[in-house]
């Protein structure tokens, strides 16, 4: 880094350029470019409609943010989503009332998360290793239970979860906004949130300070399981199908959004605002490119390049750490 760069960076960060502000800038720039590429893009209708496609990733990203702040990771979220979806669909087909099936699905999602948390904390194994195992296990259970078949004969009211509108606003957007508010409050205002950061920065010192490290971690994985289950219900309703290959590759989408939002996979840093911006940046990029008629083969390339560029800009503005 040259001296001029450093002073520029120093001056700008002196002006209070936080990570989130930079990401906001990236998002606004993106909106500006996309609206030039497609006239439909910057319409209220499109933007609201677009929200229906990031809510599932967004919900899971909230939980993943907290997990990543503690220095953990959960690779099993996509598989868990499929498992919950299949449980809801097939328990309904096998005769459970749909309401009960949904409750059962939520329970399964929660238990799956709990399993991740307990397995890694009780046995002292890195969550990456454990969730690599459950990544295959949950997916396999989803395939096995559904026998690779699909269910789509849901009653009409099930559509509310993923296809309802309140006025012009998609229902799931409201769910997402509520979830963001709750998780943001928990992370920034509660003792639990402080513990999450403490664990991520120095787990041993947290333990010496009486932070219930194991309990916090298990709670996080379980809560993420629950968020995955919520996302799974919305997803199943949105596509009105329950099948074993749902959410394939979802974990990468979620992790992309979280790390773009500034969370470090080494733990200790990350914010909800950053994650939400990360989710929005990726979602608008995909939507804008589609509307602009950019072939999807280009999108992968541009997504990768943008991810790098956004983070590079972000790092550039970040305060120097000695």
């Amino acid at each position: 880094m040259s001296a001029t760069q450093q002073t520029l960076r120093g001056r700008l960060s002196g002006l209070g350029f936080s990570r989130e502000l930079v990401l906001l800038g990236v998002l606004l720039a993106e909106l500006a470019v996309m609206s030039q590429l497609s006239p439909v893009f910057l319409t209220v209708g499109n933007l609201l409609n677009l929200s229906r496609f990031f809510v599932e990733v967004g919900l899971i990203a909230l939980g993943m943010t907290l997990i990543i702040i503690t220095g953990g990771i959960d690779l099993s979220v996509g598989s868990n989503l499929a498992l919950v979806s299949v449980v809801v669909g097939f328990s309904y087909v096998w005769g459970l009332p749909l309401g009960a099936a949904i409750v059962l699905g939520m329970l399964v999602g929660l238990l799956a998360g709990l399993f991740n948390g307990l397995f890694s904390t009780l046995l002292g194994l890195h969550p990456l290793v454990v969730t690599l195992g459950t990544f295959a296990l949950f997916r396999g259970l989803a395939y096995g239970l559904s026998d690779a078949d699909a269910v789509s004969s849901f009653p009409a009211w099930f559509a509310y979860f993923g296809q309802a509108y309140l006025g012009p606003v998609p229902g799931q957007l409201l769910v997402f906004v509520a979830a963001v508010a709750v998780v943001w409050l928990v992370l920034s205002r509660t003792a639990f949130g402080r513990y999450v950061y403490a664990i991520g920065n120095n787990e041993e010192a947290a333990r010496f300070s009486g932070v219930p490290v194991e309990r916090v971690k298990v709670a996080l994985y379980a809560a993420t399981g629950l968020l995955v289950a919520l996302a799974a219900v919305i997803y199943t309703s949105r596509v009105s199908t329950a099948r074993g290959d749902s959410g394939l590759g979802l974990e990468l989408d979620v992790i992309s959004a979280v790390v773009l939002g500034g969370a470090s996979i080494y733990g200790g840093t990350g914010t909800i605002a950053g994650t939400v911006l990360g989710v929005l940046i990726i979602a608008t990029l995909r939507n804008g490119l589609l509307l602009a008629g950019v072939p999807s083969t280009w999108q992968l390339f541009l997504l990768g390049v943008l991810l790098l560029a956004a983070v590079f800009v972000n790092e550039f503005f970040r305060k120097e750490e000695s």
Partner: protein
Amino acid sequence: MERGAAPGGGKVPVFRLRGITKRFGGVTAVEGVDFELLPGEVHALVGENGAGKSTLMKIVGGLYAPDEGSLEVGGEPAAFSSPRESEAAGIAMIPQELDLFPELSVAENLYVGRRRPRTRWGGIDWGRMRREAGEKLASLGVGLDVSAPVKRLSTANQQLVAIARALLREARAVVMDEPTAALTGREAERLFGIIAGLRRRGVGVVYISHRLEEIFRIADRITVLRDGHLVKTAPASALDPDELVRLMVGRPLSEFFSRHPHEPGEVVLEVRGLGREGEFADVDLVLRRGEVVGLAGLIGAGRTELAQTIFGIRTPDRGEVRVFGEVLPPGSPREAMERGVFYVPEERKSQGLIAPFSVKDNITLSVLERFTRFGFVSRGPERELAGRLAGALSVRGGGIFDPVSRLSGGNQQKVVLAKSLAREPAVLLLDEPTRGIDVGAKSEIYRLIDRLAGEGRAVLLISSELEEILSMSDRVVVMREGRISGEFGREEATQERIMAAATGVRGPSAAVAEEEAGR
């Protein structure tokens, strides 16, 4: 070593700093400081915590670039942009904070970043490496399994490895930043022997320490820093301890150890037959209200393990701990805290503090739930408590909202203590609470310990400084190889008796036995 004589008959300094200034953001760590190190001299660098000693030496070590001022090495201007360049110029550092590679073996730790011995085929000669490492450590009087990973070693042994690492290089200057902080008297003595050897060979040694008696034993010259400024550089013979303290603190220190013995009250903590496989066994211990009990012992005696087991960080294999007569559930620090037991760890960096957290967040971490309403932290009272405790312990170098990583070591230690006070514990287990702390802060901490005892709390003071133990304790318990080997009342406790109990041998042969125990 060949060094030409400079005009005027003086020697050319190994290195010389002129007008050095270094700022961190708004904080000026050192300002306009001159410092020189001559070949074959031991130059002590003293000052309060945060005075800028480490910062100044990190500039010599190539870790920081100075904002102003210049550096000369062997009479030539120099500028280091990395530790590597500093090393190449013949300067070896023993850093203040232990920085080893926990998964690598002792032998390998000594060779990281160095040229490793090679076999004829170009591979690494592991046999020779282990042999040489063993010899180097043996010269320090340490017998360690050099193929064991460093993470298995106690702090003291890790410190010895760090020292051996620096000495392995044939350096012209060795900078030692508080090398004895984690050592007991025995190892410290060995180190002094090594320093004498270095000096004979014409190597310059910068010696940073808060232990004044050490300074006067080994230093040729003393430089005093205060608040980043140079106060004085003088031959050691021209100073006396009181004068030195006055230079460091800026005022005379009236009473160093403050202790007002009280009548011990009821039993607060009772340890019965506590044991952990391979660490300690059959420990019985009683702490009473208003009592300070010193826990002495050699390195590896198992004092840290015992204290951590009482606190619940480690789970005992046998025995029980009672607090106010009730059995403490084993293995739960939270439960111990609830019942009024608190442990102040010896490892400040890894166990005591969350470095990026602010002073406030560190102080209140253990009591956070007290400030929560409906799960939310009420920030007013939290800030109030943190401010009050930081003030009470006179934490300097940053406000309560600054990250604790920005404070000097001693001030960090005060934050750790403030954190323990936040819980208002009935039993306080202090593990080396004054390690790396300046005289001023030390005396503040002694006053604090006295006050806590006066308030009716029970204090277990683990320390490797015998003087500290003797001056502060109502009772001294000694551990040897995981067992209690002696207990002395205030009147009976003497240096000789404690050493005898710690080494297991009485009388003049104790020193020989110590040698034996080291193997």
